[in-house]
């Protein structure tokens, strides 16, 4: 069992062993603190074979004669650095080339800890490293080296004196323990050298006969001096002042203007209102798109962004034109730039570290060389509405004061949001150590003018980072997807028969059959992706006796089950859309409807809403009619199956003929659409191959393949949507639910046009969608088949996104759908998974006199309100889906990396071809088409950046390599976890034409 002893503290030593000081609390109260300490003689010096210390500890790590390589100290030496060395030269100390045996004093550790927690945590990691020879000497507990602060002495001076005293003790300790032995030459005694940047301190040391040296001088004598000198922080000791007394809190941000002034300003046009968008590449920059300018207003620097958070509705004041600036062309990473920022100091104690951060950021802003194109620049003067919500974050482990899991102390820590658009959030928690490595939910509570970061609180933990459950839930939360199961009130709205519900036998008095056409005899089939459960559309086609063709699109009759203004309807309206993640689907409607009653499964009778056209064989519409119907689908194909069936000449049954007929019409419809100027856009879509349904480990990623039948279904859906749009707009000109895609402002394309012109000599005509489509077709590089797709992807990004709208709220000439080149459009064909379609169904039912229109759909305001939500949810669902794919791509990459490792036995990495899509001063934006992901390649060293020509010149082994936009490069992709926050991210490095790892 352990030995329990009582430590004695002689009264005579009370002066040395008791410490009394006064502390002022945040509230201004003065507290007297009395602390004692027990001095001892069993603190080991850490030098191997030391006579008096060897039995104290098992492991001594300092070599007996120190380091003998330095020319200034032929007898060998140990380095004893003071606090400032660690505060300002941490990079140097961390360098693997800097290898002298170091004696690290407790005084120094504590001072570093007091000054900067992140630096302290780095220092601590350093002491744990095996190849560094660092011995921590607890000088404050050793009776010979403990000192007390004298009257009138600053804490700084006290510490310096303590460090000198320890150095002195070490030197005498060495000589005492190695007495000269008679008859032998006196032993060579290694020196303990005080390393300090403070000249006054060095002088005092000289007086006391202690060897001391400055960092620079020391480094100059070291073998790899040239490389190490680079690491020396330029500023040296000058900019680190002693800890400042706590002054009153200083405001870091300007106050907001009063609300009345904001409203008046916006009304008069002096101020501008808009949504704040943070820049994901540069955390010190944001923008606010406003109607008054064609380009968004740029906000540069923290003060100008004035506490706005992504999504807030803000009011901006625009500066004079001469102060306008261009957006920076450099990547500035918040994590990297602020890694030494301190959670506590910058908040509770006001200035301290704060100034340093400000200075650093100023530097960053000044360093950014900006290219010439200027855009409106301004500052935020007020916030109309905060759009704060709960954010998914990781705890930054360097901001912790104690990483002990049993610790109960309240700590102030940083939470880094998963989204790069958000600032770090400061929060106070008692369970910080447990939360490290977990995804947690944090809400912002407030952001005061005196606080650099917003303050928030911990909501709950989601689970371990990279566990699928946590990642999935965090995704859903991050994109505000409501994922709770449907409540009882909602489920009560379902038909009471549940799964057993069937279409009742045909009779004139059953309500289901009222005004419904019996289309059960038609040869109807559905074509969907594999494993599709919510089949909401089915098709048929047949030849009419007059030579024309009858084609029908049958859509699940959701509005028969979802009645307006009941709980299920309002839940669906608030969900807006079904969200598809890679391994999960979050339904808009209860699954009884979605996957059963409304799903147009084969061989069962289902209620449908049908649009039936009579077309000439040239696909010209002769007539269209809409009707509620009862259908019985004859088959449910996947795209592949349908394709095979269509192509197989042996199949001559009615079903196959019907598919062929549909296909022939679709081809003509598509040709017609293209001729009208529809765009063939590309978006990077990939498919995740899952291992098995249970484990759902992604095996690999591949690009989605498109078949003829995809386009078949698409054409008929477009046709149905357009026809329905016409019909409901005619009947309800004020409140029809329509969808439009506004033509993109010409300025959006300027950059792409310029790049194309300069890099490839190609022109992009954006005067109309037709012209754009034509010129996109011409953007072909015979050597790079993927180039065209790339340009299409980039062009797509220049466009606006399509939106739902209420026909009465915008002028008639803006109804058009730019991408589809259709004058009018709506969504009608997927009512199971989109709420807008449900509305369109109701309106169409009213338009054909099937049922009266519910009062709410007569109100323009109501329709607008609902569509606003649906639009937002739609956007969020898309982003959630994309993020989910990204996460799985990451997992797949990791798996693939590991497999490669297993194969080759060396570091696993995935290499892929990529295209450069953006150039920055210090990096490249690349797009890996095979994986559908975008990434950033960063260069540490300077490059020559030519903003006008979109090229970057990288030195590589003597000769320079120029990389420009659209170049094909090879990148190595790995998934890397941030050391501090455990946030995983895809890291790309250039492999070809240059290896960027060394840059």
């Amino acid at each position, binding site marked *: 069992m352990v030995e329990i002893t*009582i*430590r004695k503290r002689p009264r005579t030593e009370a002066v040395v062993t008791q410490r009394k000081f006064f502390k002022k609390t945040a509230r201004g109260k003065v507290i007297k603190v009395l602390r004692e*300490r027990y001095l*001892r003689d069993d603190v080991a010096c850490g030098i191997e074979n030391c006579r008096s210390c060897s039995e104290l500890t098992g492991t001594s790590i300092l070599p007996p004669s120190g380091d003998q390589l330095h020319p200034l100290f032929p007898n060998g030496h140990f380095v004893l650095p003071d606090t400032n060395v660690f505060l300002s030269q941490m990079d140097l100390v961390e360098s693997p080339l800097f290898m002298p045996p170091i004696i690290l004093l407790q005084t120094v550790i504590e001072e570093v800890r007091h000054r900067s927690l992140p630096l302290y945590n780095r220092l601590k990691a350093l002491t744990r490293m095996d190849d560094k020879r660092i011995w921590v000497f607890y000088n404050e507990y050793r009776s010979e080296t403990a000192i007390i602060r004298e009257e009138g002495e600053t804490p700084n001076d006290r510490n310096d004196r303590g460090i000198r005293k320890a150095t002195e003790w070490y030197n005498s300790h060495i000589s005492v323990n190695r007495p000269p032995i008679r008859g032998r030459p006196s032993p060579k005694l290694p020196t303990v050298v005080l390393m300090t940047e403070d000249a006054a301190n060095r002088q005092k040391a000289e007086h006391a006969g202690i060897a001391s040296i400055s960092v620079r001088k020391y480094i100059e004598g070291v073998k790899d001096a040239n490389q190490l000198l680079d690491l020396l922080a330029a500023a040296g000791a000058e900019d680190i002042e002693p800890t400042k007394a706590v002054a009153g809190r200083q405001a870091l941000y300007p106050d907001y203007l009063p609300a009345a002034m904001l409203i008046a300003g916006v009304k008069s046009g002096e101020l501008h209102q808009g949504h704040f968008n943070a820049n994901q590449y540069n955390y010190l920059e944001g923008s606010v798109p406003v109607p008054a300018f064609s380009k968004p207003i740029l906000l540069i620097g923290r003060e100008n962004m004035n506490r706005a958070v992504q999504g807030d509705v803000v009011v901006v004041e625009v500066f004079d034109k001469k102060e306008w600036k261009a957006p920076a062309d450099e990547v500035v990473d918040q994590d990297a730039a602020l890694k030494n920022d301190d959670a506590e100091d910058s908040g509770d104690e006001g200035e301290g570290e704060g100034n340093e951060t400000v200075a650093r950021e100023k530097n960053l802003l000044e360093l950014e060389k900006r290219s010439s194109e200027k855009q409106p620049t301004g500052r935020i003067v007020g916030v109309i509405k905060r759009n704060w919500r709960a954010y998914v974050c990781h705890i930054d482990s360097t901001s912790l004061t104690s990483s*002990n899991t*049993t610790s*109960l102390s309240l700590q102030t820590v940083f939470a880094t949001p998963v989204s790069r658009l958000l600032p770090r959030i400061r929060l106070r928690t008692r369970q910080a150590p447990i939360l490290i490595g977990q995804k947690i939910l944090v809400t912002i509570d407030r952001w005061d003018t005196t606080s650099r970061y917003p303050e928030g609180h911990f909501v709950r933990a989601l689970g371990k980072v990279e566990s699928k459950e946590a990642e999935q839930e965090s995704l859903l939360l991050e994109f505000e997807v409501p994922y709770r199961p449907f409540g009882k009130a909602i489920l009560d709205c379902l038909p009471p028969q549940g799964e057993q519900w069937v279409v009742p036998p045909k009779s004139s008095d059953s309500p289901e059959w009222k005004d419904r056409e019996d289309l059960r005899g038609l040869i109807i089939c559905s074509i969907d992706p594999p494993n599709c459960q919510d089949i909401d559309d089915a098709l048929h086609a047949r030849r009419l006796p007059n030579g024309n063709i009858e084609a029908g699109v049958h859509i699940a009759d959701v509005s028969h089950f979802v009645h307006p203004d009941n709980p299920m309807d309002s839940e669906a309206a608030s969900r807006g859309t079904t969200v598809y993640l890679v391994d999960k689907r979050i339904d808009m409607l209860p699954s009884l409807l979605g996957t059963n009653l409304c799903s147009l499964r084969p061989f069962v009778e289902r209620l449908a809403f049908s649009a039936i056209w009579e077309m000439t064989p040239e696909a010209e519409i002769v007539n269209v009619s809409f009707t509620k119907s009862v259908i019985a689908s004859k088959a449910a194909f996947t795209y592949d199956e349908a394709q095979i069936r269509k192509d197989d000449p042996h199949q001559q049954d009615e079903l196959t003929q019907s598919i062929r007929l549909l296909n022939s019409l679709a081809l003509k419809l598509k040709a017609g659409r293209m001729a009208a100027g529809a765009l063939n856009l590309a978006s990077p879509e990939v498919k995740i191959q899952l291992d098995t349904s249970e484990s759902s480990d992604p095996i690999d990623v591949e690009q989605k393949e498109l078949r003829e039948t995809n386009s078949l279904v698409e054409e008929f859906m477009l046709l149905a949507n357009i026809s329905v749009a016409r019909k409901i707009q005619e009947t309800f000109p004020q409140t029809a639910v329509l969808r439009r895609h506004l033509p993109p402002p010409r300025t959006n394309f300027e950059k792409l046009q310029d790049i194309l012109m300069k890099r490839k000599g190609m022109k992009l005509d954006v005067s109309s969608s037709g012209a754009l489509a034509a010129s996109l077709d011409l953007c072909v590089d015979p050597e790079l088949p993927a180039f065209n797709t790339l340009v299409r992807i980039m062009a797509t990004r220049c466009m606006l996104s399509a939106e739902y709208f209420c026909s009465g709220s915008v002028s008639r000439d803006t109804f058009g759908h730019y991408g589809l080149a259709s004058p009018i459009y709506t969504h009608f064909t997927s009512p199971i998974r989109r709420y807008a379609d449900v509305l369109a169904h109701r309106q169409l039912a009213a338009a054909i006199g099937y049922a009266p229109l519910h009062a709410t759909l007569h109100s323009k305001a109501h329709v607008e309100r609902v569509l606003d939500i649906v639009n937002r949810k739609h956007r969020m669902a898309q982003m959630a889906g994309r993020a989910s794919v990204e996460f799985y791509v990451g997992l797949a990459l990791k798996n693939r990396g590991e497999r490669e490792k297993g194969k080759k036995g060396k570091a696993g990495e995935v290499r892929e071809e990529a295209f450069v899509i953006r150039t920055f001063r210090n990096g490249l934006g690349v797009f890996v088409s095979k994986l559908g992901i975008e990434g950033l390649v960063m260069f540490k060293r300077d490059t020559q950046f030519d903003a006008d020509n979109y090229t970057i010149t990288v030195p590589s082994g003597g000769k320079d390599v120029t990389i420009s936009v659209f170049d094909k490069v090879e990148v190595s992709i790995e998934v890397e976890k941030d050391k501090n926050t455990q946030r995983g991210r895809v890291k790309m490095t250039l492999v070809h034409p240059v290896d960027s790892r060394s840059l």
Partner: protein
Amino acid sequence: MGSRIEILNEGGFRSDGRRQFELREIIIELSPQGVGDGSAIITHGLTQVLVSVYGPREAKSRSHTIHDRANINVEVGVAAFSTGERRKRSRGDKRILEFASTIKSTFEPVIQTNLYPRSQIDIYIQVLQQDGGLLQACINGTTLALINAGIPMIDFVCAVSGGVHSSDPLLDLTTLEEGDAPHITVAMMPKTGKVALVTMETRLHVDRFEQILTLAREAGAVIHREMKKAVLSRSNSLVAVMQSGHLVQERAVDDGMNE
């Protein structure tokens, strides 16, 4: 504001230079003042309490008398200057009342109360200085004051606090450590090894509990040695005084012994 002081650093030192299993210095003064029947000042590091014991004596009121044993009355006063922040605690403070009742229930089975029916023993505890381990100091001080008053007890009661930092147990925590580490206070009786009291105000992992409890009991034995030494030396000095015939100065103590 989180503390910037490490509870247990990598060298195995605690914030005041002690190692894990080292107790703070204990200073014991018996009958420092002549008023009570028995009194003691005990200092654990920077925690200091004064305990005075009166009795056994006639109960002040009817309601306080128990027909077959003595009633024990514990009152605790906390000096306003005992903590860094001056703060006056009223006597009716809930925490203090609870604290007093903890001490009372600890000593009730230890003091042989059945020897003094219908009487009362008053224990007045004055907290002079606080730096963690208040309960242990109060219990140890009370034991000593009771012995000093000559009140028969079946055993010493030795208390010590123990906590856990990460997975490392600590003994005799200071305020700083109490704020960070989950901890318990254990009072044990060295002769029998029985535990008279275990209290816990923070959550402690069940796996760690047993380890700390055993450790605290062993530490109790160490404290017992220290207390016994103090009592013996006090008795020796009394014997020496008695033999020289000068009894006048020690009246108070004598009275207690004669009862």
